[in-house]
């Protein structure tokens, strides 16, 4: 079994909500990356939960930048470290708003230039920090403060967009599988070139479930097949264990939806759209994993 380092780089305690998956994910990201790491954080929950000046809860250097510039800033930083002959890990830790909507041009540019860095998007499927407004990542049928009747459009397929840049490593992970996340971050940092990890972060106040269910919700998302855990290394797809099991025998999608207040009163049409979208994605990935396309 993989040995997880005992050091904590997220000190007790951030001002994150009780049961926050972001601090859980960040704990394992920094454990995998180690002390020689710089975090670049655009506007998102993580830029707020660090604590109050002159104190911070994060025990690595953190650079807080504007929403649109995270990947561009990391590009410059990587270049500077290379020129100085240092092997410091540069990690962008951004929310879905800063990745899927606002930061996508900088992300695209950095991946096109093959910047040697790791981009982690923790996806709570809305702008959580400002009060749960809809983002491009919000799934169809979900209620947010700007879509009170449920979102009418499907979730943007960010992984396909990033994959089109042909990165050296792309993976999806989930806050409920921290060991899997730890291994993926370690593997990503061992490779050269642009790396991307997309992590699902079930957000208790935003998705409207009670705080103890964070880990359970993430597991249900994977087991129902809505969130597929896979990695793509230099173009080769591997589907990870929990998702392989989910493809053979998924739990009903309704189990996942009924636990969340944001899907209250969702109509059958939206459920069917969610189902067909996830089935199509699974089929496509399965074919890629088998080497058919």
């Amino acid at each position, binding site marked *: 079994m993989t040995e*997880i380092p*005992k050091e*904590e780089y*997220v*000190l*007790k*305690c*951030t*001002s*994150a*909500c*009780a*049961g*926050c*998956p*972001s*601090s*859980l994910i960040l*704990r394992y990201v920094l454990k995998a990356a180690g002390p020689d790491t710089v975090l670049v954080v655009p506007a998102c929950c993580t830029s707020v*939960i*660090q*604590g*109050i*000046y*002159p*104190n*911070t*809860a*994060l*025990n690595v250097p953190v650079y807080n930048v504007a929403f649109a510039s995270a990947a561009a800033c990391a590009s410059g930083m990587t270049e500077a470290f290379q020129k100085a002959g240092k092997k410091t890990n540069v990690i962008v830790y951004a929310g879905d708003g800063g990745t899927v909507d606002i930061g996508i041009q900088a992300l695209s540019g950095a991946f096109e230039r093959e910047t040697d860095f790791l981009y982690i998007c923790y996806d709570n499927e809305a702008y959580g920090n400002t009060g749960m407004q809809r983002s491009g990542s919000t799934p169809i049928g979900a209620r947010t403060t700007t879509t009170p009747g449920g979102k009418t459009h499907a979730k943007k397929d960010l992984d396909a967009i990033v994959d089109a840049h042909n990165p050296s490593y792309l993976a999806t992970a989930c806050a409920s599988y*921290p*060991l899997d996340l730890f291994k993926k971050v370690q593997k990503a940092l061992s490779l050269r070139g642009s790396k991307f990890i997309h992590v699902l972060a079930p957000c*208790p106040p935003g998705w409207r479930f*009670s*705080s*103890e*269910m*964070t*880990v*359970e919700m993430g597991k249900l998302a994977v087991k129902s097949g809505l969130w597929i855990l896979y990695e793509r290394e230099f173009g080769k797809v591997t589907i990870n264990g929990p998702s392989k099991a989910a493809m053979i025998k998924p739990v009903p999608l309704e189990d996942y939806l009924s636990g969340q207040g944001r899907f209250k009163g969702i109509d059958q049409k939206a459920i069917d759209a969610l189902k067909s979208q996830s089935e199509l994605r699974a089929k496509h990935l399965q074919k890629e994993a088998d080497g058919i396309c």
Partner: protein
Amino acid sequence: MSTRPAMSRPVKGASGKTGSWRVFKPVVDKEKCNACGICGMFCPDAVISDELEVDLDYCKGCGICAQECPKKAITMEREEK
């Protein structure tokens, strides 16, 4: 004029003692506990130590540990104020 640069330094308790947020506190039944460490693994704020002691100064009482404990050795009890 101070020459200290405008940057934050890492300290424990940067956001104050977050234990005051708690409504329910985790109580561990040592008889049932088999020290697997799953509670500590899933704790978002890393307040459960290797000896599986909960740091109540900082525990926010989210209840993930009680939910994920395979032996159901942790119960959430209401804080007495």
